[in-house]
């Protein structure tokens, strides 16, 4: 009850008028005040509302399991993480996989490889496709998270989540994509089918890399809010929305290659709108996650 009384009584109307995020920050703060953090609630929250950027890192870390739910152990656990990071980094330095000149992203990749036991015998070995995914994600993440330790950990756990939690659902996404595109704009889909571009759409970029490198980080992090909180379906809607937004151009293109090429390099200026619309679309089709408060 106290929570409620602290909240602004106008909060109900903010959303109606279109101001989003006014009340979210406060409610998120309230959520974060709980001593053992309620992961469930955080998940719901982040699915439902965009996260304020100042709390994003913390929420992500909690949701990804980098930090335990207990506030008291945060410092300690974070110290462990830091140690681990420095140890791994040191080891890599020792084995001369990385040096000071190595780009941070690659450092992350090597560290990840090391930790997952996939470190190639030599740094000169060609990279696996999943390493590329990691690199893209890490690159995006590097933009989003300042601290390199945090960045590494978030990237690592994010990728881990993709590989473990979403391992089964990710391959289903293209199908879902077709389905929702059909619902939203069947003409576009038929056009795509006519161009036989459906199978050649940049699914890897969209669903494996989670649009890393496709969308600018400012928009991307809003998408990843949802991904981190456990919903990979948002990716489908972002893709659908991209197609809807660039419908005219896509319709104008006739060959699958051109379409794919265009979609791989979509203009960045409208990404914010795309993401907003995609989230709306997602809410529309999958329903707004209920705040279990």
């Amino acid at each position, binding site marked *: 009850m106290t929570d409620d009384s602290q909240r602004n009584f106008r909060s109900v109307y903010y959303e109606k008028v279109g101001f989003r995020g006014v009340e979210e920050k406060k409610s998120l703060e309230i959520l974060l005040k709980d001593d*053992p953090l309620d992961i469930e609630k955080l998940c719901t929250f982040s699915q439902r509302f965009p996260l304020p950027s100042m709390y994003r890192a913390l929420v992500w870390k909690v949701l990804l*399991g980098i930090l*335990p*739910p*207990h506030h*008291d*152990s945060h410092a*300690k*656990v974070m110290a*462990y*993480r830091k*140690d*681990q990071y420095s*140890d*791994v980094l*040191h*080891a*890599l330095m*020792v*084995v001369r996989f990385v040096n000071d000149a190595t780009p941070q992203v690659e450092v992350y990749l090597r560290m990840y490889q*090391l*930790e997952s*036991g996939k*470190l190639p*015998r030599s740094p000169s070995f060609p990279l696996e496709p999943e390493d590329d995914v990691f690199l893209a994600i890490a690159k995006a993440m590097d933009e989003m998270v300042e601290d390199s330790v945090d960045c590494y950990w978030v990237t690592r756990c994010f990728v881990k989540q993709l590989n473990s939690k979403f391992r089964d659902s990710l391959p289903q996404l293209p199908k879902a994509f077709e389905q929702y595109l059909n619902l939203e704009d069947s003409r576009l889909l038929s056009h795509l089918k006519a161009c036989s571009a459906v199978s050649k759409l940049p699914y890897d970029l969209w669903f494996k890399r989670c649009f890393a490198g496709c969308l600018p980080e400012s928009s991307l992090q809003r998408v990843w809010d949802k991904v981190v909180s456990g919903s990979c379906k948002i990716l489908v809607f972002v893709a659908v929305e991209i197609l809807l937004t660039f419908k005219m151009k896509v319709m104008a293109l006739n060959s699958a290659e051109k379409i794919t090429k265009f979609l791989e390099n979509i203009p960045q200026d409208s990404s914010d709108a795309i993401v907003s619309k995609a989230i709306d679309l997602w809410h529309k089709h999958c329903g707004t996650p209920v705040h279990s408060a």
Partner: protein
Amino acid sequence: MAQLANIGELLSMLDSPTLGVRDDVTTIFKESLNSERGPMLVNTLVDYYLETNSQPVLHILTTLQEPHDKHLLDKINEYVGKAATRLSILSLLGHVVRLQPSWKHKLSQAPLLPSLLKCLKMDTDVVVLTTGVLVLITMLPMIPQSGKQHLLDFFDIFGRLSSWCLKKPGHVTEVYLVHLHASVYALFHRLYGMYPCNFVSFLRSHYSMKENVETFEEVVKPMMEHVRIHPELVTGSKDHELDPRRWKTLETHDVVIECAKISLDPTEASYEDGYSVSHQLSACLPHRSADVTTSPYVDTQNSYGGATSTPSSTSRLMLFSPAGQLPQSLSSPSTRLLPEPLQATLWSPSMVCGMTTPPTSPGNVPPDLSHPYSKAFGTTGGKGTPLGTPATSPPPAPPCPPDDCVHGPASQATAAPTRKEERADSSRPHLQRQQYPLNDRGLEDLPPSKSVTLGNLPYFLGDLASEEDSIEKDKEEAAISKELSEITTAEADPVVPRGGFDSPFYRDSLSGSQRKTHWTASGTQGSSVNPETLHSSLDKHGPDTPKQAFTPIDPPSGSADASPAGDRDRQTSLETSILTPSPCKIPPQRGVSFGSGQPPPYDHLFEVALPKTACHFVSKKTEELLKKVKGNPEEDCAPSTSPMEVLDRLIEQGADAHSKELSKLSLPSKSVDWTHFGDEIRTLRDQLLLLHNQLLYERFKRQQHALRNRRLLRKVIRAAALEEHNAAMKDQLKLQEEDIKMWKVSLQKEQTRYSQLQEQHDTMVTQLHSQIRQLQHDREEFYNQSQELQTKLEDCRNMIAELRAELKKANYKVCHTELLLSQVSQKLSNSESVQQQMEFLNRQLLVLGEVNELYLEQLQSKHPDTTKEVEMMKTAYRKELEKNRSHLLQQNQRLEASQKRVVELESLLAKKDHLLLEQKKYLEDVKSQASGQLQAAENRYEAQKKITRVLELEILDLYGRLEKDGRLRKLEEDKAETAEAAEERLDCCSDGCSDSLIGHNEEASGHNGETRTSRPSGTRVSCGGRSTGGSSSSSSELSTPEKPPSQRFSSRWETTVGEPSSSIPTVGSLPSSKSFLGMKARELFRNKSESQCDEDGVTSSSLSETLKTELGKDSGVENKTPFNLEASHPSSPNSDSVGQLHIMDYNETHHEHS
């Protein structure tokens, strides 16, 4: 002034021959009259009229509207005063009055009336007098209420004029007197009709005078023969007559008819009521009445009524009413002709078809149009025309006639053309027009009729002339008749072409299309009129009438500007010019034939039109006529001849004379002799004027009749409708009567049924009454019984009450006794128990006594050695008893203490359970927290493992490379260097750690198993039995023996590996106070239960102390009470040895207990 000049010009233009101009000017005048209110225009108009006698001006003057009436009357009044203009202004007044202007009621107030009366009293000119009287007679019905003021004047005038008739003051010609007489006669009728009482009284007073007796005998008395007794003489009074209320309800025509009613003069009277004249007539001429009743005309008219109701009804009415009029209006000559016009009308296709337009009221008809009615008789026209035509070659200014002729043709009116003659007025051109219709009629219908009339005329003339007491002789008559026949033929001929083509008159005529209706109406009227006149003329004056008809001929010829010579010329020319094969030729023959009494050749026409009736009638008529012709002389001696008839005869004579005169005149002589005839011409002109006046008067009367007719017609229609309604009502009545009968029958039935039911009901009622009586009797009996029973009941109740009181008393007693009884029984039981006790005691006493005896015996027997022993024993027992008692006391105390203790412990237990739960929860929390941390650590560990693996791989790789190189030696040195480098690197990063590690390891070995948790959190050692030594050995095993640095690493790793086990404390284990858990737990418990525990501690310690003291005293009780405590004691020392671990509260309590 300009305007005046203008008016002058306009006035002159009024008489312009061009019709358009005249119309325009007339409209201009009318407009200016409408716009202007001043008297000037009217005055100039009157002046102009007097000057020129202009017809258009007359027309304008007669139709003046309201605001100008005063000016007109004033002007007339002014001129009446002047002798010179009197005559013409009176005629103007006559014109105006006859039209019944809307302001006629003002006449009575106007100064004109007195001046007119004065003039009539004073004037000596017969013409003026006649005209004035006629005007007065005309005015009287319009202003009946004025009689009140002027009645005596009227009577004076009558007296004066009647005496005039006889005395002939001055040198008044006989001819004028006839006119005067006729007008006096009319005045007599009017006055008698309107004011009978007053008039009679006047007559009485006036003619009772000697000097007037003669006049009365000669003049008034004959007049009185022609009136019947006025009903007012019986019912009314002098005052009543003058009462304006009497007149209010009567319109002008009503008054006229009133007057006509009382007349017995067939020419004057009205047959409206079906008596009066008819009686007389029937008396005089029985066959005539038969005619009236059974005459075919009635039938025909009735039949018309069937076809078209309105015309027929009017005509029917007309049949009687106009009879009086006609003779007066010079129409009588037409007697013979009448059948023809009638026939003509009957014949007209439109009539036959019933298509004749309904008659319009003559009242509506403008003055001009009304003329034709009065001149209905074609015969006159027939004669007049020849004379008239020459007189007015182009139509000088006949106001109305043109119209008439136009309409006649246009409407192809049924009215015979002859009737439309207008010659009476001015004896001028009007005549001509009447013939025009003929042409239109086609050759079949009218021409025959016309021809008949014309044909008959000569015959009549001949006849009449012979009868006349006048100078004419047979030869002359014959000559006249011949000439007439000639004329007629001649006249008839021209008629045809003229009418047929557009004659000048035709052109002159106004656009008269609207007036068609009038014509047709007039036609019907005329036709209906004819029979009447026919009768009258046949009856009495058959011979005279023709003459009258001729009279008009004279005046025209006389008055007409045209010279007889002109006439002659014209006639001759006409004669020569056109002799159409039309019926015109027939007349002469006809006349002959008629004269010979043969049925006229047109009989077949009658047959066609009216197969039976007409035929019958015609034959009858001819017979009558023949008779008349023969019996004329006798008729002459008829007792009275009304002045009218005299006048008629005069006119006829005049006509004859004139015709003779004309015939005598030779063309050249005419001009020469003009002056010689001046005198006569003057008289003739005057006569003509008089006649004109008379005619106008008659016309006025006829108009009134027409009005009357319409009203009566309406009444008839209404009556018919009412009759039908009555019939319908009768039918309904019959039906209803039948209904009533039926209802009566059913009523009777119902009554019988009702009586039956009544009887039944009565019997029922009597039965029920008897039943009721019986029941009432029963009821009374029962009532008595019940009363008896009630008295009994009351007795019983009283008894019961008494019994109850008794019962209460008894109960009370019983209770009392019971109480006593219980007391007694208690006492008894007490006493019994006492007795038992007593018995028991007695027995005891006995037993004790026996025992005592026994003991005494024993004592006595053992007496010596037991006493000491017994005493000893006794003391021993006593001591023992005391001991036991104290012991018991002690034990009791202990028991209480232990019980308290138990309660305390139970509360503690509950508290501890609670704590335990909290602890568990907390532990869960901590566990999750720890697991989080642990996971992180594990992660780290995993990472480390990976790192090491990588490093190892690296190392192995390096080794592999070294070995492969073959220059092992060299490489060995290199390896040593690298190892050193690695060592150094590791040293610098883990120096601090390794120092502390060593120290701890030593400690751990010393404390082995005792204080595991007392180590700093940074370096943890597993309590799971893995010794540091073992760990070091394992680490050494892990690391390659060759590398000391690696050993150090391993030791460090070892500590990290051991971490998880130490961080998982089991529930049962007691965490040390210094450990993380311990600190947490202490905090927790301190907050929640410290205070409580402290108190408990105090109480429990005191308890334990007391218990301890007791324990020392009584060992026997020890087994029971401190059971729990002692059981816990052995453990507490153990826990004491682990003293620092006092985490739990119960640890402390145990400690205290111990």
